[in-house]
């Protein structure tokens, strides 16, 4: 790789900071770097190159941000004499590779830049994805390319909450207008529930041919979101349950009917009764813990007593299908 570096002090106003072609980090805090530069100065020069007579930053966006915050007007730079964008970008990539792990969105930006600068898909897959600790497949390549195009609101959430690839990849399926409504709903939830909400929204949206934002605009969900009774986490939880009911209307009807039968019967505490997963079979499982013969007999007595009641039959009764349920598809 032929290259010539020249070192000099550059007036930062000479930098075209609007030109972000080489930028990979967007969401970061420069507070610690500000402190460091304040105390000991900028030890590592910024890497810049010339494009159409203007200086463009190749590497050092965090350092630049810290300098600007400190009101520093000039800084040491290395000028890279490399007219090819791809080759210039590889400098910043290899420089960063040595020193740190890339967060998800930076990996996405790297993949996107490589692709934009003309590197072949097969080359990115074979040579670069492994360096980023990403499996070298078309799926991951396309996923990271899509992540780089995500709406800023989603990017901010991914970076701020350190959302994993699985959730971030799901956000790609939504439009910016949907994400504005979805992101605030997601953030209070744990990752499993985030995944569930996103899946349910996508499934309902495809099934009913409506947009996710239209689903979130329905009166039932709006009543939850606009209520002043609950904090954000409870609102998100209630919306999650409402979406699940919408996606699985018959299953949730069976689950609710089963729970209601247990409540009506006064099912004894300390003994669990579980239907087969998704009611796939008629099997049920009753279980309890005991420490001695006395506890064991006490549980058996409770079971005998509860099973002798007339309401016990309701445990084996399931709601019938409704036409309404069918028409929802």
């Amino acid at each position: 790789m032929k290259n010539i570096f020249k070192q000099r002090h550059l007036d930062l106003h000479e930098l075209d900071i609007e030109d972000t072609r080489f930028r990979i980090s967007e969401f970061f805090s420069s507070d610690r770097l500000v402190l460091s530069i304040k105390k000991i100065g900028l030890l590592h020069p910024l890497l810049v190159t010339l494009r159409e007579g203007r200086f463009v930053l190749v590497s050092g966006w965090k350092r630049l941000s810290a300098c600007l915050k400190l009101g520093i007007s000039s800084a040491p730079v290395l000028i890279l004499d490399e007219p090819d964008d791809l080759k210039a970008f590889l400098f910043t990539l290899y420089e960063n590779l040595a020193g740190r792990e890339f967060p998800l969105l930076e990996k996405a930006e790297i993949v996107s830049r490589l692709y934009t600068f003309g590197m072949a898909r097969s080359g990115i897959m074979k040579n670069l994805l492994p360096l980023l600790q990403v499996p070298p497949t078309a799926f991951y390549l396309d996923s990271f390319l899509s992540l780089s195009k995500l709406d800023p609101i989603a990017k901010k959430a991914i970076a701020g909450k350190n959302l994993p690839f699985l959730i971030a990849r799901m956000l790609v399926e939504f439009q910016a207008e949907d994400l504005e409504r979805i992101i605030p709903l997601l953030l209070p939830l744990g990752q499993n529930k985030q995944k569930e909400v996103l899946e349910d929204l996508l499934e309902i949206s495809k099934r009913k041919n409506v947009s996710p934002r239209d689903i979130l605009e329905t009166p039932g969900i709006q009543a939850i979101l606009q209520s002043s009774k609950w904090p954000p986490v409870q609102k998100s939880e209630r919306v999650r349950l409402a979406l699940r009911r919408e996606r699985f209307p018959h299953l949730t009807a069976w689950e609710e009917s089963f729970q209601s039968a247990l409540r009506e019967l006064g099912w004894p505490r300390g003994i669990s009764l579980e239907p087969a997963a998704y009611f796939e079979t008629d099997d049920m499982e009753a279980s309890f813990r005991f420490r001695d013969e006395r506890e064991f007999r006490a549980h058996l007595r409770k079971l005998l007593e509860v099973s002798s009641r007339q309401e016990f039959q309701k445990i084996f009764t399931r709601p019938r299908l409704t036409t309404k349920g069918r028409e929802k598809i």
Partner: protein
Amino acid sequence: MASLPYYPDKVYIDKKALDFPLTERILEHLDGLPQEIVASPRRKQAILEAVRRSEDPVGEGKRILYLTVQRGRFVKPCPCTPRVIGCGYFIINLNLQCPLDCTYCILQHYLAEPWLTVFVNLEDLWHELDDFLEKHNRRAIRIGTGELGDSLALDHFTGLSADLISYFRGKANVCFELKTKTAGIGDLPAVQRPGNIVVSWSLNAGKIAGEEERGAPPVIERLQAARAVVKKGYRVGFHFDPLVRFPGWEREYEEVVRKLFQVIPASSIVWLSLGALRFPPALKKIIQARFPETKIIYDEFILGRDGKLRYFRPLRLELLRSVAGFVKKWGGKEIPLYFCMEGEEIWRDGLAWKPRGKRAVENTLFPRLWGQDKS
């Protein structure tokens, strides 16, 4: 408009498959198409990688025919699915993959190699079948080629159906089934009387056949082909699988069942199977990528005990019971019906019968075939 028979864009011939008569026969029929002898495993791997790198590896694979030698066993028990009542079926893996492109097709996910494979070492097949049938000479065997590929979709250049019929005809304890979605019956030889060869069709509601079974002829063409086959002396079977829920499914499925019995005499039908749409979660992702317009995968599916996504039980039961009811209404109660890949609760509630294992299912399917109905 009649559906055009399938031809590949290119034929690859495994070097080891060169000297077989079936290879010669197929290449004669495909003379004029680009052909390449695959001389090494490395070359095969390169072809495979090129297909896998394409935008649509499944679709790309369908453009390739690969002639090779079966090194493993041809005959296997139908894999069915765990924790359901099976039907004791055996499959012959003579060709793999299918040129049709149905949205729901499990082969998009199931097979390691994306192209259409034909195994050409027929002599090995006959020997293996001789041994297999000898070993099972005390039980009734239902066996067929339509599990990992369509039995007739390549028949216009392989001619395999005639070979298979010739082998199985007259074998007393065996029923051989050719299963298809096509109307390509031209190469089936006429038979003297209904015997142990069954030609069967996969049927579906018109909407599903039209929107989700790309490359397959309309249902009416399949039924006309079935009628022609009955006239040639065969008995026929039908598989409503997968049954799919959609707005208006009851009306449409009743319509296709009614049409079936208008065209085909019930007495010619040896069995009819019903199966509700089911698929592994991994297939869902493939379907989403390949058929973004489809809606059939967005219904109320749960993860079944076999790890496949299935309609929530009451929805599945309603679908299966309704179509079973249409069959009884329009075709009478004597046609043997069975469910594909369902557990005992669905059998009990859908057909008012809880078979004690797959042998019990097998036994219901045979008497009619041999003309030994209880009546």
